[in-house]
Structures are given as structure tokens and as C-alpha cells.
């Protein structure tokens, strides 16, 4: 009797391991690659009523399960999709820019790093915890519209955020990838980042609390490791 229980337990464990292995095998991993852009749009009281900061680098990866569209135009069912991942931006890669993308000011960059506590917190992090497909695209070239939930960490303070994310599968002869775009408005004081309020060469400047984060995140599907030689 005891022996039979042990065997049954072993079989159950083996089945569980197999199921887990199958699930892992069904997960598709995408890793970040160059071509991304993060843009932070803010407001100010003087000189320029808006200010812009950009980074061309967004690192990280996501893993998605079955039901996630990996090809353009792929048939999908709206609803929750198994997904997890993280994205990060190096604070030191953020640079102030003019509206045409040209560099704006070293001083503005310095103020950004200072307020985001760059010396202590090198990255802005985002951890994806939930992804829900809202609707299938109306054309093959259009992105899939998701609702995403995750934890955003700025200057060491973490807040849960929800935002729409447009995901466009991109297939080239070389590889498969994703372009994820979206935007969200956040209050910097929620992250204990105080707005700029100081005297500069150009006069007294006070920035608004709300900033808009606009991003395009480019990822490429990680290729499966080559099979072991027989």
C-alpha cells in the first residue's frame, strides 16, 4: 500500500514537471533591441511652456504564452494573455531635446539626473504583470490593442500602473519581433520626484507635476538554442 502511494506520488510529480516544462516550452521570449524611443513630455511656467526628454534605449524582455499574436494578422481571442516581463531605461541615457529632436541643454540634463536621483537609482524600471487583449486589429498592418498592468519604479519608488499598449508583430526574413507603443501620464510627486522650482540663467522655472511618457519599444524574438549534437 505504502509502495503504491509512493509510485502514485512519483507519477503525479512527473506529470506536474512535464506540464510545467510544456508550459515553459510554449512561452515565447522577446528581448529588447535597438530602435526604441522613450519620450517624456512635461510642462513649465516660463520660457518654453513645454519640455522634452528622450532616450533611444529601452532594455529588457518579455515572455508571452499561447494566444499571443506573434505574426501580423494572426487570429486571436480577446482576453487575458499569459505574459510577464520587464523594461528599463538608463537614467543617464535621457537627454533634453528640442521639438525637432536636436539637443537642448546640458543644464536641463543635469537637473533631470539630479531629480531622478541618478547616482542612487540608475534605471527607470517597469515590471509587466498582466496583459489583456482588448481587440483584434482591423487590418494586417494594424497593432493589437492590449491593456497592460505593471509596476513602474522611478527614483526608487514603485507604483502600479495600467495603460493601453499597442503591439505590432513584425516579421522580417531575418527574424520575428514586436513593436510596442503606448503612453501614460503620471504625477512625478507620486514617485516622490519634486518638480523643478529654481532660478536658472534663463529665469525662474517651475515645472508641472504631470508628465507624459510616450514610448516605442522594439523587441526581437529570442531564437531557441541549437539542439545538442547527437
Amino acid at each position, binding site marked *: 500500500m505504502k509502495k503504491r502511494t509512493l509510485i502514485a506520488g512519483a507519477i503525479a510529480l512527473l506529470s506536474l514537471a512535464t506540464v510545467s516544462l510544456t508550459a515553459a516550452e510554449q512561452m515565447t521570449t522577446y528581448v529588447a533591441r535597438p530602435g526604441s524611443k522613450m519620450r517624456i513630455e512635461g510642462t513649465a511656467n516660463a520660457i518654453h511652456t513645454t519640455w522634452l526628454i528622450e532616450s533611444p534605449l529601452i532594455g529588457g524582455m518579455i515572455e508571452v504564452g499561447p494566444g499571443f499574436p506573434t505574426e501580423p494578422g494572426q487570429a486571436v481571442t480577446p482576453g487575458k494573455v499569459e505574459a510577464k516581463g520587464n523594461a528599463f531605461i538608463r537614467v543617464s541615457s535621457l537627454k533634453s531635446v528640442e521639438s525637432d529632436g536636436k539637443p537642448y541643454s*546640458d543644464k536641463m540634463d543635469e537637473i533631470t539626473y539630479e531629480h531622478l536621483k541618478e547616482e542612487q537609482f540608475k534605471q527607470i524600471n517597469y515590471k509587466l504583470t498582466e496583459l489583456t487583449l482588448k481587440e483584434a486589429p482591423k487590418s494586417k498592418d494594424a497593432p493589437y490593442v492590449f491593456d497592460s498592468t505593471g509596476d513602474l519604479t522611478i527614483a526608487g519608488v514603485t507604483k502600479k500602473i495600467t495603460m493601453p499598449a499597442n503591439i505590432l508583430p513584425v516579421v522580417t526574413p531575418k527574424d520575428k519581433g514586436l513593436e510596442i507603443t503606448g503612453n501614460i501620464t503620471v504625477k512625478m510627486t507620486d514617485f516622490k520626484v519634486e518638480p523643478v522650482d529654481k532660478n536658472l540663467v534663463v529665469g525662474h522655472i517651475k515645472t508641472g507635476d504631470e508628465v507624459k511618457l510616450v514610448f516605442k519599444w522594439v523587441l526581437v524574438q529570442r531564437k531557441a538554442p541549437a539542439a545538442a549534437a547527437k
Partner: protein
Amino acid sequence: MSENESEALGYNRRDFLKGGSVATVMAMMGGVELFAQTNAAPASETKAPTIKIKVAVIGLGAWGREIVNTLGRMPQAELPIDAEIAAICDTYKPFLRRGASAAPAATQTEDYKTILDNKDIKAVVIATPTPSHKEVALAALKAGKHVYCEAPLAGSIEDAREIALAAKAAKHLAFQAGLQMRSDKQRLFLLPFVRTGALGKTVLTRAQWHKKTSWRATSPNPEQEKALNWRLNKATSLGLIGEIGSHPIDQAGWFMNALPTAVTGFGSINFWKDDRDVPDTVQAVIEFPGDVRMIYDATLANSFDGEYEMLYGSDAAIMMRESKAWMFKEVDSPLLGWEVYAAKLKVFNETGIALVAGASKPPPVDEKGQPKQVDPLTTTPLFYALSNFLLNAAELTQAAEDYKASYGADDLDGMMEALGKTRRRASAGYLEGFQASVTAVKANEAILTGKRIELKPEWYELS
């Protein structure tokens, strides 16, 4: 090497500080002075995190020591970098000792390779004799150092091309040719002013460099003395037109956005009848497109009127002296408007208008709101050139770290492409350095042969 070697070579602090008296003279002449905003920021601004960068200076002749002096003043400008002179190098011990007086904490070495082996040193400034630039610059780039290489880049077009191509390939590194005028705030202010036609039709340009100096250094050791006097030997020197004239000639082309098309030269040893074979007095006519010619002359035999550059247009002329500039308008030229309020300068019967970059901005103030004293050495073209070099180097170093942290270091081509897009502050790059060297080599050839040489456009192409 004599104690007055700085004076002998015509580079010294006093020359840089002379700007004030020049301004006074020009003010008396009625010129309108064009000023540039200084780097100094109001004390009310907070100090943000800075990027630390260690730099070494290789070559400590008079100009190399001026570079060390200038680098030592970086903290005064409140730049977002913390530049440390980590090492200084020269094969001649007296130079090392003199260099150390301005950088006492720097490691001293006679072998530049020990600097290249030091992983903590990210940037090097090469101020060695021109013939050795190639060896040191190529080794420095290979060792992954950001490189500031004095102009001319080399004594031959082939060597200059080799340096420029190596710099072009190293997109992850900042390479700057020592054409400091291209980083000068005053000249950057003048550039759009000239290019947008404020002078009317540009008709001619002129520059001079006059000094009473032997250009000779002395040493108890004859072999050492010969090495120190590489500028006086035409086998190793591009002479006055190369070592000095390459800067204003490059500047003229930069302002007019054109490359020279021909050069005619004259040179002779008129005064210093020693064992030198490099002319002590040179004149050259450099032709630019549109029938605009530049007249350049330099002499080691007379110091009258020092050095300055002129641009002449149908509506106005601009005079540039060190870090100052004045505009002299024709009576029939259109009214620009702002010049009514600008500072004036009487020059004989002419009235000069001061051209001052950032003149409408408030001057820097200290903690008490009082006008801040600005060290004149922090507003020279050399200061701006070196600070831009270090800022570019620091930014590229940081950008490489950010890239690797974001995407890993496997895709070297991708990283190079991304780093190639990193913004660069105003500076002469490898192409400008190469092109200025081509002109210098050919202008020297024209001087030594007394001929007119047509400068083929393909000579200015890198590959």
C-alpha cells in the same frame, strides 16, 4: 631647452591674456565687438551629478603645457564633468618637470604606452611634435582612448589620412582635431552671422601672425636640441603655414563653407640666419570658390599688429582677434537694427561694432548676486575645444555603458551604429582635421617651391 622656451615658440599665457588690451585698442578705433557668453553659471544653480573622466596629456612642449594649464581650469567652468589630469608624458625630462607644476597629482612618464595601458585613463591629448602624431594617435585609438590630436594631424597627407580613417572607424570614441577655433563660442556665434550674408557678398579674407621670436629652443645636449627644434627642419616641419596658418585657413573655409581650390606660396629666411631650413617669413594666397582669395602672412621677424583674421564683404568687414570680434560696416550697408545699441570701437576713421555672443543674457553672478570674476583662460578657444572634447568623450563613454546595459555587448556593429548617432559638441572631427592637414601640406609645398598648386577635390576625400 631654455627657460624662455614658451616665448621662443610664441605661445604663452600673456598672449591669451592680452585680449583685454586688444579690446581697448579696438574700442578706441570704433569697432563693434562681438562677444560670446562664458561657461560660468549662476551660483544659484544646484550642482548635479558629474561624470568623472581621466585624461592624459602626451607631449609637454610649450603648447602641451598650455593644454595642461587649461585642463586644470575645467572645474571653474562648472561643466557636468569632473576631468582629472591623471598622467602627463614627455620623452624630455625638463618638460615633464615643468608640466608637473600645473598637474602635481598626475603620474609622470616618458613612455606614452604606459598611459595607453592604463584602463582608467579614457582620453588622451596628443601635443607631441607633428611627425609623431600618427604613431601615438593610432596606438591610442587602438587602445580604446578618446583622442584629441593637435593640428596639423600629420606632416604628410598619407599619414593624416591614416589617422582620420582610424578615427572614422572608431565610432565609439571621440576624435577631435586640435582646430580649436571650431569650438570657440565667439566664432560659433559669428558663423551663422557670416553664413547668412550679414557681410553682404564675401569678397576676400586675410589673416596674419606676426611675432619677433626665433622659434628656437636650446638644450645642453646637441642631439636633444635638434629634436626639440623639429619645427626648424623642413624634413619634419610644415613650417609657419602648417603649424600656425592651418588654423586661420581652416577657419576661413569653415566660415565660407568651402574648401580651398588652389594655393600659391612664398617663403624665405629673411632674418634668422642660423642652421634652419624652414622659412621665417611666409606669404600665401589661398583660393576659394567664387573668386574669393585669402591672403595669409606670418613672420618670426616682426611683431607689429600681432595676429588677427579678417573677412571682407560688400556690406561689412569682420575682424577677429583671439576671443573677440568687431564688425565694420560700409556706409551704404543696410541697417541690422541691434548694432545701434552695441558697443562701438573707433579705429582710425572707422567705427567697429562689437559682435558679442550671448550679450543679451545676464552675466554670471556669485552667491551674493555680484558679477562673477571669470578666469580669462576659461574663455579661450583652447578651453572650449578641450571642454567640448572631454564632454564628448564622457558622453560617448556613458552612452556605450548605457547601450551595453540595455542590449548587451554582443552586437558590436549595432553598438557602433548607435554610438555614431551620439550628439557631439562643436568640434573639429577627423574629416576637418584631415582636410586642414591636406591644405597645410600643399600650402607648405607651394611655399617651398614658390609655385601655385591646384587643390584637387579628391585630395580632400577620405576614401
